[in-house]
Each structure stands twice: as C-alpha cells, then as structure tokens.
C-alpha cells in the first residue's frame, strides 16, 4: 500500500509575517532556473578559467616540478605556483598550517600544487595533465590508529573532567569497556566550490565566492595578496548548499582566483570539477572512541571515562572548535556525574577535515548513545529506559560537565510525547513478534533524544550586524551579515523586518551578503544565522519604527509610544495612515529612513583551558523514533517509518523549520548508513564522485515520515523566542542506526551487542549479523 507522505505542522498559523509558513524568498527563482549562483553570473569580457594540479602523493617532498608542457598547452595563459603568491601563502582559519599552494612539501593526495589559468575551463583541465612532478616519498600517516601510534596531532589534546571517575569506577556495580568508531562525511553541496575574482582600480579585488564566511574570505584574500581589508569586497547572494564545507574551505579557491586576477589583471573564475572538489576539500571528522563505563543494575551511569580521537587530516583548520563541541556534546541529554573526556586531534596525511553540520556535536553525542545502547543490552532492558533514567533533571542533576546549568530542559516531556504519538511500546511488541516469526528479515526500532547547545564556542563570534533601508516608495531592503545557503535565513530575516514595520512580506527584499555593507561578520554557522542576524535586523527595523512613530504621532496625534504598525498601515490616536504615506511624510520631514542594527548574544563565557563556562545561550531539543527492516542474508535494510518531534521554540517559519528538520534527518541518516568514505592504501580517496559516494536518494525517504514541532518557547530572549534549527536535527537519525543495531541483535535473541560500525553499509550490517551469530560482540 502506498501511503502518502505526511507532514504535521502543529504551530498555529498567525496573521503576522512571523510564525507563518511563507515560501522561501527565492523559491520562485529556484524552480524557474532564474536564481543565480556564482557560476551563473554573466562573465566579464576576457574571463579566464582555472584548474588545479593536485598532489598524487600522500606525503612527499617535491623533487622537481616541470610545468613547461603545461605552459605550452593549448589555451594556457599562465601557471601559478607558491612563488607567485605575493603575500602570505596560507589560508588556515585559526593556525597558519594551511598552504594555498604546496611549497616543497605535499601532505595529502589531492593537495593543490599549481594552478593553470587558461581561456576555458576544459583547456585548463586538459593542460593540468601535462605536468611532470617527481616526488620524494615520505612515510605517510593515513588513519587514526597510526596517528595515535606516532603521537601525531594537529593541536594539543583537550580534557574535561567532573567528579572522580577513576575512584568512582572502583565501586560501580557493573563495568564495561569498549572501542568503536564513526566515519566522516562529505558535505556534498550540490554546487561545488567556486570563486570568481575581478581586479578593480587601485589594486582592489572584487570577489564573488560561494562561501558561508565572506568576511574571512576578505581577510585571507587580503593576506594572500598583501593588500588591506578595505581593498577587498566579497559578495555572496546564495550558495547551492554549504553544510559547513564552505565555512573555512572556500578560502583556498578565493585566494587562488584572486592571485590570478591580480597577476593577470583580468577576471578569473575558479570552479571545481566535482572530483577535484572531493579530492581537495575536507569533510566531517571521523572519530574513534575508547571507553570504560560503570553502571548500576538499573542502568544508571555511575562513572565514565572516554578517549576520543578525531581525524583532523593534514592541518588544524577548524578541528579545535570541532573537537571542543564533540567534548561538550558527549553528555547529549544525560547527566554524567563522574566523567572524564580526553580528546585528541589526529594529524593524518588526508584532506583537512572541517566544519559539517553539527560540527563535532553529532560525533560526541553518538558516543554516549552507543554506550547507553550497550548498557541496555547488557542489562536486558529497553535502551529507552536507560536513556530516561540518565536524563538531566529539571532542577537537580542539571549541570553539564563543562559547568553550564541547564534551565530549559524539556527532554522528559518531549520524549514522553513522542513515545505516545509514535506508539513506540505497541510497535516494540509487534516487532518482537515479527522477529520471532521471520527467519531472514528482522525489524528494529529505536527512540533517541537530542540536546544541542546553541552559540559559537568562541564568545566574540556571537555578534552580527544588519542594515535596513526603507525607500520612499515604502519598499524595504535588508542586508545583514548572514549568508543564504538554502536554510531560509533571508526569508526569516525578511519576515522579522516585515513584522517590525507592520508591512507585508512582499514589501521586503533581502540582498546579497556584501562585505562592503555590513563589516566584520561571523560565519553563517553553528545554527546561529537567524538568532544573530535576525536580532540585528530587528534592532535596525525598530530604530526606523521609532523614528516613524514620532512622525505618525506628530501627524495623527497621540503618543509615539502607542503607535502601532500592522497590515501596511500605521495607527495612532484612533486614526491611521498607510505605511507608504507615512514614509513619504517622514522623508519630507528629513527623517533618516535607514538604520543599522547590532546584536551580540548576552551572558556567554568560556575558558578553553579549563573547558568550563557557559558556552551556549540555550539548548535545542528533539527526539525521533525510527523503525527499520534488515535482511540478514545481505545486510540490506530499509527505513519503514520515522516520527520526529523537534523543538524549534516559537517557530518563525514552521515550513522552513520542518524543512531543516527533515533535511537534517535524511542527511544524518546518510552519514550513519550509505555514505562511506574510502581511501586506498596509498592514501588516495577512492570515493570522490557521486558514482562512488552515495548520499541518500528519494527512495531512502520513508513512506511514513511524520515530523512535528514541539510546542515551546525559548526561555531566553531570542528572536521571537525561536530556537536555532540548522544543526540539531542531524542527530535525530541516531534512531535509524540504533534501530538497525536492534534488528541485528535480535538474530541472537538480543544477547550480544552488535559490533556495528558506522556508516552501517550493507557490508557493515552483514558483518555485525555474522558476529552476533558467532557470539562475538563489542568489547
């Protein structure tokens, strides 16, 4: 039977522009092909194109680099190497260990060595292949285990401890040790990395770049060219997806394109072929875990000690903050009294791993969820029961290991609600019966919770600016520091401005992020886009509203404080005037009709040394229930049904939030199932195109997919009391992974913990089936 895919949007539709499911501001452009991305911009006359020459060795000194045949190839205009970089040959976002073009030493297969500038993209790509490179190979460190052996780290280890787990471990009821791992993940933004640079007068550069961080691109381009920040303008209207992959790692392409544009004095485009993109850029960090846990008969965690190692790749990039977030999310929704977390950042000769939706949080939380799943099976209990008894309390047991008091905990009622609405208990029994009757196919179900901290862990990143212009025809232009990558940020910000000024959404237009408009912006990352930029835009709009209120009160009579703005009209003293007419009046009265707004998140503090503080303004919560069916002969599986209940606070746009929730869910499911990154023994990534790297497709979307927003308000004074929704849903598909694990465990009557590795490919599943059949389980 075909069931229609359903959605439930619980929040009541409101008449104001916020709280309403408006379509994405660009939806009509997306569907008609009229939305322009960087590669769609009309090219300036004489535009040149770049292709990059990549290292074929994981670790080597360059003995010789003969590019004469490349230079002689058809269409080639110039070939650039490290020595052509006028400023600093580095684009590392935090530490200077990220060369733009390798200089003498290559550190992974795929590292850019030289850039070919040619009259066409194809000519540049063809010319690259004429390079003659001789390598002096050096020993390469290719995985976490080797890095640990070699003590090869990109940054020093971190440690977070509360209580005394070593001592507590002596008196625990049960003890368990184990090791497991979780793989990395390619961002696979549909629009590959691209930068288009054009020189302008006085040594300036204008750059169109698909990036989540225009300000950082401005900075690195300036450093690379040896020019000032005020000589670089970066513009970004929209990305074809970012997911973290265009936070720091758009930099290398921005820099190379700018170097070429400056040197050749013409516009230069650097667009990556998909394979090159995947070979060059970093991915989500894979992690390995080694833990010891002590627990009571009921499954209460008495002490826990874990070592986590993230695979950083050849440079630090954003690994420091990623690992910090992993450490700060190991608790997920659970109170851990005696806990020690030691986290290492392995330096390997592979792509430099970077931001990806969740930013280490998913990996950290995945660890505790695995351990809880193991405890449950050891005790012969439902993992949900173990989860519940370990949840943070509301008024006690409510301090995180990093010292933050949780005062917005809704996990109890949220889980209670979805347990009921998904029929979890009934279905559990039905599944048990199914598994009893079926020889080959097995089913499993799991309910997993999410608690996710919102804010940048670096306190001063939590700031934003906006500009709101009201024109004399009553239309409004808003510009802010955030970038649009599909998440609906511009839609929400426009809704906020429309609401503040009481006008229809159609009167407001959001424009491209532009470093010459709002300066010193933070990356659009950490789910904070709307929280920060929405507030800044609201402040700007309020400034204008206050000015207009004075004009309205002067004209209509009444107190400016009692003037109201709604339905494109302004009301005072029981009279009203249209917004347009009021704007005209204000202009004629020489009132400033544009304003800036600036916002910073209050009350945050964080000490990276002690790993203590209040790094998060608040937490977002959610839970999902997933049911799967697994084939024990082949390891193939299918998701039968998923229910999601997610806390987006008081949603500004329920449809957009549901879109983030479902999209994050399916993306996270890909990470934990079909998306497998493979490197060959020489360190060459072998899954570097969609033919070999498999993100979820349409059939993977379950027939029964019920997503609902949890009825909640942010207790903090966030924009409209909403909550950030970009990253937290990526953790919801833990429910899929643990449902698969449960189905596998049923093969041996749930006696063993399946040693299921992530991603749970059919092969990984079959291996785990085989293992539990033979009574082998996780340590």
């Amino acid at each position, binding site marked *: 039977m075909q069931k*229609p895919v359903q959605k439930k949007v619980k929040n009541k539709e409101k008449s104001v522009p916020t709280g309403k499911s408006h*379509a994405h501001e660009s939806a009509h452009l997306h569907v008609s*092909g009229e939305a322009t991305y960087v590669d769609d911009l009309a090219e300036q006359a004489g535009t040149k194109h770049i292709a990059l020459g990549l290292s074929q060795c994981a670790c080597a000194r360059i003995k010789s680099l003969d590019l004469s045949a490349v230079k002689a190839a058809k269409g080639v205009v110039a070939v650039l190497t490290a020595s052509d970089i006028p400023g600093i040959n580095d684009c590392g976002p935090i530490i200077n260990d990220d060369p733009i073009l390798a200089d003498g030493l290559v550190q992974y297969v795929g590292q850019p060595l030289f850039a070919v500038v040619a009259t066409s993209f194809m000519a540049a790509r063809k010319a690259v292949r004429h390079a003659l490179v001789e390598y002096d190979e050096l020993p390469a460190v290719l995985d976490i285990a080797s890095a640990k052996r070699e003590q090869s780290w990109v940054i020093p280890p971190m440690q977070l401890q509360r209580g005394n787990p070593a001592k507590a471990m002596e008196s625990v009821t049960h003890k368990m040790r184990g090791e497991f791992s979780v793989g990395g993940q390619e961002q696979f933004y*549909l629009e590959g990395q691209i930068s288009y640079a054009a020189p302008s007068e006085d040594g300036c550069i204008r750059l169109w770049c698909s990036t989540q961080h225009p300000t950082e691109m401005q900075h690195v381009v300036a450093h690379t060219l040896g020019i000032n920040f005020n000589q670089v303008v970066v513009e970004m209207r929209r990305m074809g997806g970012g997911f973290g992959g265009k936070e720091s790692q758009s930099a290398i392409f921005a820099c190379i394109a700018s170097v070429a544009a400056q040197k050749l004095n013409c516009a230069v485009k650097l667009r990556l072929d998909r394979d090159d993109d995947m070979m060059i850029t970093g991915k989500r960090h894979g992690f390995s875990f080694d833990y010891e846990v002590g627990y009571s008969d009921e499954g209460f965690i008495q002490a826990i000690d874990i070592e986590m190692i993230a695979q950083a790749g050849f440079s630090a990039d954003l690994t420091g903050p990623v690992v910090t977030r992993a450490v700060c999310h190991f608790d997920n929704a659970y109170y851990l009294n005696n806990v020690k977390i030691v986290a290492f950042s392995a330096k390997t000769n592979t792509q430099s791993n970077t931001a990806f939706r969740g930013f280490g949080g998913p990996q950290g939380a995945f660890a505790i969820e695995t351990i809880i799943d193991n405890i449950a099976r050891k005790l012969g209990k439902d993992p949900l029961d173990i989860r519940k008894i370990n949840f943070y309390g509301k008024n006690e047991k409510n301090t995180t290991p990093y010292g933050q008091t949780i005062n917005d905990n809704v996990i109890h009622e949220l889980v209670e609600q979805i347990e009921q609405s998904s029929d979890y208990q009934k279905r559990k029994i039905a599944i048990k019966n199914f598994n009893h009757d079926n020889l080959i196919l097995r089913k499993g179900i799991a309910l997993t919770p999410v608690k996710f901290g919102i804010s940048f862990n670096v306190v001063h990143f939590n700031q934003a600016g906006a500009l709101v212009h009201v024109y004399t025809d009553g239309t409004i232009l808003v510009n802010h520091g955030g970038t649009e990558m599909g998440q609906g940020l511009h839609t929400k910000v426009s809704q906020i401005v429309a609401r503040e000024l009481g006008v229809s959404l159609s009167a407001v237009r959001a424009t491209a992020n532009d470093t010459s408009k709002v300066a010193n912006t933070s990356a659009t990352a950490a789910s904070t886009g709307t929280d920060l930029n929405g507030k800044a835009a609201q402040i700007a709009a309020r400034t204008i509203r206050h000015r207009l209120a004075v004009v309205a009160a002067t004209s209509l009579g009444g107190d400016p404080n009692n003037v109201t703005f709604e339905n494109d009209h302004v009301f005072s003293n029981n009279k009203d005037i249209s917004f347009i007419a009021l704007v005209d009046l204000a202009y004629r009265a020489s009132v400033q009709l544009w304003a800036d707004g600036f916002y910073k998140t209050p009350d945050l503090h964080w000490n990276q040394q002690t790993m203590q503080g209040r790094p998060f303004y608040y937490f977002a919560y959610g839970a999902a229930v997933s049911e799967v069916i697994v084939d024990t002969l082949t390891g193939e599986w299918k998701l039968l049904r998923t229910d999601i209940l997610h806390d987006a606070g008081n949603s500004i746009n329920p449809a957009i939030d549901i879109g983030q929730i479902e999209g994050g869910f399916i993306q996270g499911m890909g990470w934990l199932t079909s998306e497998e990154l493979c490197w060959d023994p020489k360190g060459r990534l072998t899954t570097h*195109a969609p033919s070999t790297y498999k993100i979820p497709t349409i059939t993977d979307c379950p027939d029964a997919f019920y997503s609902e927003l949890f009825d909640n308000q942010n207790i903090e004074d966030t924009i409209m009391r909403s909550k950030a929704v970009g990253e937290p849903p990526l953790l919801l598909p833990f429910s899929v992974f643990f449902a698969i694990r449960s189905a596998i465990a049923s093969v041996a009557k749930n006696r063993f913990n399946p040693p299921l590795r992530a991603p749970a490919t059919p092969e990984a599943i079959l291996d785990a089936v085989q293992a539990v059949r033979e009574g082998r389980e996780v340590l």
Partner: protein
Amino acid sequence: MGCVRFFLDGEFFEVENPDPTRTVLQYLREDLHRVGSKEGCAEGDCGACTVVVGTLVDDRIQFRAINACIQFLPTLDGNMLFTVESLKTAGLKSNQLHPVQQSLVDCHGSQCGFCTPGFVMSMFALYKTNPCIDRLSIDDALSGNLCRCTGYRPIIDACLSMTNYPTPEGSNPLIFESARHQKINSNCGINDQEQLAVEQLRKLKHSDGLTIKVDQRLYHAPNSVNQLAQIYTDYPHGHILAGGTDIGLWVTKQLRQLDDLIYIKHIDELNQIEQTPLFIKIGAAVTLTDAFGALSKQYPELRPLFRRFSSAPVRNAGTLVGNIANGSPIGDSMPALICMDAKVLLRQGHQSREIELQDFYIDYQQNVLQAGEFIEAVLVPHKDRVWQLRSYKLSKRFDQDISAVCASFSIHLEKGEEHGKIANIRIAFGGMAGIPKRAKQTEAILKDQLWNEGIVHKAMSALSQDFTPLSDMRASQNYRQQTAANLLYRFYLETRQNDPMTCDQLDVFAGQG
C-alpha cells in the same frame, strides 16, 4: 559541413559544425548563457543538469528526461529540447509558473535551489508521461536527482499534487497539459501544439544521415544499418555512440579526445523491438527504458532489477546493447540475460552472425568483436514457464548505485516422477570477476540433484571455486563471496518445492517493484 538542427522553446535552432563532444550542458550554459540547468557532477549521477528531450515516436512527441552533462550536442539533431527555462515561458503570462514549479513552491520543495531545475525537469517528464502518479513512479522518475537539503519529502508531496493544478487558459498545451489531463480528455486526442511539434520534427530528418567534421574529427550519424556497417568498416577505430552514458564520461572526466564518433540512434532499424518466433529482438539503439518495458511484460520477475538499474535519465539515454557491448564486469543486465540464454546478433560489413551472450566476453574489457564488427541486436528467448528466474542486485544504496554483486539464477525443476530434481540451472554473476560470468562449477554440483537444503549449502560453498572477486570501495572480497552464496540461498528459499518463501519475506525492498 554538418548542421545540428533542433527545436528549443518552439524555436528552430541550427548549429553549424559544433565540436562533436561538446555537451548539451556546455552548449546551454556557455554558448546560450541559458544557465538554469546546473552542473553538479558532470557524470550523470546528480541530475542537476536534467533536461527533457522530445522525440518523434509513432506520430507523437515522447518526453524523456536525460542528463545534459554527458549528452553530446549533435545527438539533439532532429529533437526538441526543453529546459527549465522552457516551462515558465510557455505560460500565458510571463510570470506564470508551470504546475510542476508551482507545486514545488507550495510544498516548500526547494531549499538551496541548486538541484531544483533538475528536479523540475524530471518532474516535468513525469507530468507529461504518467497519468496516475504514485510514490513508486515518483521514486522511479526522480531516482537520478540528488537533493542534499530537503530530505525529499516535500518534493514527493509536490509530485503528488502537481497534476491537481488547473491548466491555465491560453498556455501552451505541449508543455502545460499533463498526461493525466490528456487521459481525462482523451476524446480530444493530440493537441494542436503537439501536432505542430510533430510536423516540425518530421521536417528535420536528414535523408543521408548527418556528418560533422571539425579539425579532422568526425561525427557520423547514419540512418541505416547498411550505412553504419560501411562507416564502421571504414573507421574501425571509431567509437559507436548511442546513449553516451559511458562515453560522455570519457570526455568530461577522462578528458579524452574522441576522433571518430558513430552515432546510431537515428537508425530506425536499430530502434525496433521485434517479437520474432523465438525471440524478443531488441535493436542496438533501443533505450534501457524501452527494452526493460518490453522485457518486463514477459519477465515481470525482473522488474525489481530494472528499477535499480542506474537512474531514469540514464535509462532514458543508455541502451541495453550499450550495456552489453560496454561489457563492464558490473553491468547489471548481463547476468540476467545470460540466465535467460540470450544471444547477440553481430554485424560486420555484409556479414551477420549470432553468438551466445555468455560467449561474447573473453576477459576484462575484451570481447569477441572483430574490427568493424558491432552488435546489431540482442535476442532474448521468449519466456519458457519451466524456468524460474530471479535477479538480485546488491549495492550501498537502492537508487542509482553500481552493484557490489549482481546475481541471476534460473532453474528448471523436474515435474512428475523426478519431481524436485534440478533438470537444469544457470547461475551468472556481475561484480564477481573481470567479466559477467556463469558459475559453471556450482551449476555442475546442482545439476540433476534434488533442490534441497543440503545441496544448496554444498553449492554455496562451491561458489568460491568459481569466483575470486576483488575488494574495492563498493565491497570487500569477503562480502562479495558471502553474499553471492547467500543470494543463492535466497533463490533457493524462493523456489524450493516445500513452502517456498515470498519475496516480501526475503527482500526488504519487496513491494517496490
């Protein structure tokens, strides 16, 4: 010397002597600056470049979605091209969205929007061809479109609702009238605009085929088999091009220069599916979509395999004979065809010969074809009810993935006195060797034995004598060996005499085909 002629938005386009390997996508984006269609991978795997080609078939326009990124421009000759820009312009008012587009807006089906034009075009093909759209047909039609943002649910909703939108007065019915509307108004017959399109395309037929010559590089598009045989004799090192779903990548990924291309899709004889007394004869230019359509009428048990065979746009362009001739060890059609005892009809100059498909392959990327010889058709025997046939594919993902293992089994069990004895069995695998290959030793163990638990286990162990598969990013040797055996066991469970199991007891995807 040669002119590629086609229609775009009802307008006649003529491109003189284009580079034969310029892709449709490059032409659209770089030459026409028609940038709605996107490049996401340049290998036909993400669907961001999807366009729809309208072809003249039986006096109607057939709408098929294909990947513009690997389709060469000259192959458009004689066709109509529809891109994402075509849809809105066909409306009455300039700002009127097509129902496919409007439903996506209303269902919140786009986020970053980069994949959206491709989805729009796959949905448009579905809209124009399927009068009763359900989840299964949606999954099929959109199996070649990757979306990284939405999780697909809103796109599915849009597909389910798109034919409920009214066709606005005055819009171009060639583009706005859905298959559903057409079915409801079937008495109206073919609409004026389609009739016009049919007449336009009729006029584009080249009487002597098309030849393009650029810098000593040749592109031939003959329109008879005899002409083809002659050209291929003259240019034995040329490449025969049909769907281009592999050759396209030689250009976009391997950056190869292809000097002589011989395009066969304009040859009527090769576009035929013929029911001969002994065979279903499928010509070399017949697309996978059409070939599978014909085969699944007699062999419905192969539908699950056909669904998982690449994606809709690839099946719409690629040909069954192309899959065979390409001879990839992981080509998914061959294990089944070998089990069906299919033959291939070869042609060289004026000579023809027929050989068993299983004898066609010699070794990795080597086959029996002589210089200037090509496959004219594949001959699939009509169904014989004494045989039970199954084909199973394993890969990391359901849609559009390359097999780790593709297994096919065909068994003939005795009735009557020797009830349950294996009169004959054929077992063929893809992904297990350098070529698609039969498991001869395993078959020998099974032949003339009773089809029971004991013998199947013996046979499962014997498979390791037939095959020593490789480990790669798709699967390890161990997984391939183990699942090859387990799939034989699945086949046994499905076909055993006592209490055979149904496919929904054995296959998590059952009910999907």
